[in-house]
C-alpha cells in the first residue's frame, strides 16, 4: 500500500499520485500495520471500482495531476484550449483586400475596354464584393463553429441570407419579370426592394444577436480571472 502525505489516504501500490490531491504517494508499506486507524482500507477490484464508486467523487487516474481544490480557478488540461489566434484575421483581411483589388481592377478594365459581356455578368460583377465577403464569412463561421457554435450559426444564417439576396436580385428577379410589361415589372421591383429591405433588417438583427451570443458579461469574466 501507499499513503498520500497530504490527505493520508491509502492507495494501491500501482498508483504513483494521489487520486484526490495529486501529491506523490509515499513508499509502499504493509497495510496490516494500519489497523489502528479503524480497519484496513478496502480495495475494490479494478473492474468494480468505477461501478461502486460514488459518482464524481474521485477523479480518474489520468487527471490526478490536474485536481484543483474548490475555490481556485479551474485549469483545463493542456492542449484542449487553443491559444488566442490573431494571425488568421490578418491573413483573411489581406486575402480579402487582395481579392477586392483584383475584382475592382478587372471591372475597371472591362468597362474601359467596353467588352461585350452580357448584362447578367455585369450584375454579378457589381455584387462580386458581397459574394466574396459571404464566402469569407461562411468559412470563418465554419472555422469557429466548435468554439462559438451559436454565434457561428447566426453569422452563417446572415451570410446565407446575404447570398440569397445577391442571387435573387441578380438572376431570379430578371427571370421572374421577363414576361411582364414595363409597368408591371416596375411594381414588382418595388415590392422586391421592400422584401430585400426586410431581409437586410433580419441580417442586422442576426449580426447583433451573434455578437452577443456565447459571451459572458465583462464583470463575470473579471471575477473568473
Amino acid at each position: 500500500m501507499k499513503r498520500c502525505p497530504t490527505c493520508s489516504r491509502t492507495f494501491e501500490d500501482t498508483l504513483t499520485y494521489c487520486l484526490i490531491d495529486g501529491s506523490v504517494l509515499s513508499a509502499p508499506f504493509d497495510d496490516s500495520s494500519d489497523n489502528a486507524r479503524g480497519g484496513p482500507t478496502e480495495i475494490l477490484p479494478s473492474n468494480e471500482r468505477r461501478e461502486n464508486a460514488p459518482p464524481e467523487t474521485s477523479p480518474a487516474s489520468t487527471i490526478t495531476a490536474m485536481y484543483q481544490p474548490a475555490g481556485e480557478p479551474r485549469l483545463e488540461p493542456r492542449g484542449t484550449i487553443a491559444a488566442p489566434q490573431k494571425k488568421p484575421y490578418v491573413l483573411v483581411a489581406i486575402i480579402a483586400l487582395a481579392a477586392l483589388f483584383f475584382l475592382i481592377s478587372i471591372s475597371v478594365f472591362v468597362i474601359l475596354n467596353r467588352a461585350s459581356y452580357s448584362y447578367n455578368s455585369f450584375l454579378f460583377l457589381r455584387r462580386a464584393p458581397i459574394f466574396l465577403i459571404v464566402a469569407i464569412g461562411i468559412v470563418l463561421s465554419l472555422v469557429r463553429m466548435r468554439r462559438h457554435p451559436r454565434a457561428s450559426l447566426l453569422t452563417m444564417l446572415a451570410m446565407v441570407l446575404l447570398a440569397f439576396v445577391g442571387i435573387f436580385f441578380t438572376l431570379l428577379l430578371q427571370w421572374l419579370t421577363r414576361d411582364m410589361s414595363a409597368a408591371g415589372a416596375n411594381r414588382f421591383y418595388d415590392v422586391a426592394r421592400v422584401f430585400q429591405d426586410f431581409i437586410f433588417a433580419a441580417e442586422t438583427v442576426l449580426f447583433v444577436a451573434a455578437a452577443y451570443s456565447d459571451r459572458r458579461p465583462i464583470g463575470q469574466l473579471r471575477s473568473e480571472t
Partner: protein
Amino acid sequence: MDATKWTELLKSFLEQLPSFLTFAACIVFVIARWKRYPRVSLLLLIALIADLLHQIFFTILYNWVPDWLLGSNYDSANIRNVYTVLGLITNTVTVAVIVLYLLAIFAKRQPSESI
C-alpha cells in the same frame, strides 16, 4: 433636383423604412448592453451607424449621380457602366460594414466563452 426626384428619393427612403427602424432598435439595444459588453457594443455601434449612413448616403447617390453623369447621353452601355461602377463602390462599402460586424462577432472572444 426637381419635384420628381424628391418624390423618388422619398419613395426610396420609405422602401428602406424596415431597416431604418431595425437600426434604431439595434442601436438602443447596443447602448443598453454597453455596461456589460463594452468592447462588443462599441464595435457594433460603429458598424450600425456606418450601415445606417451607408444606406442614406448611397440612396441619395443613386438618385442623383446617374442623371448627373449621364446627362442626356442615355446610351445603354453608358448606363450599364455607370451603374456597374456605382454598384461596385456601394457593395465594397457594404463589405467594409460587414467586416465590422464580423469583428464585433468574433474578435476579443475568450476561448472559455463558448458555452
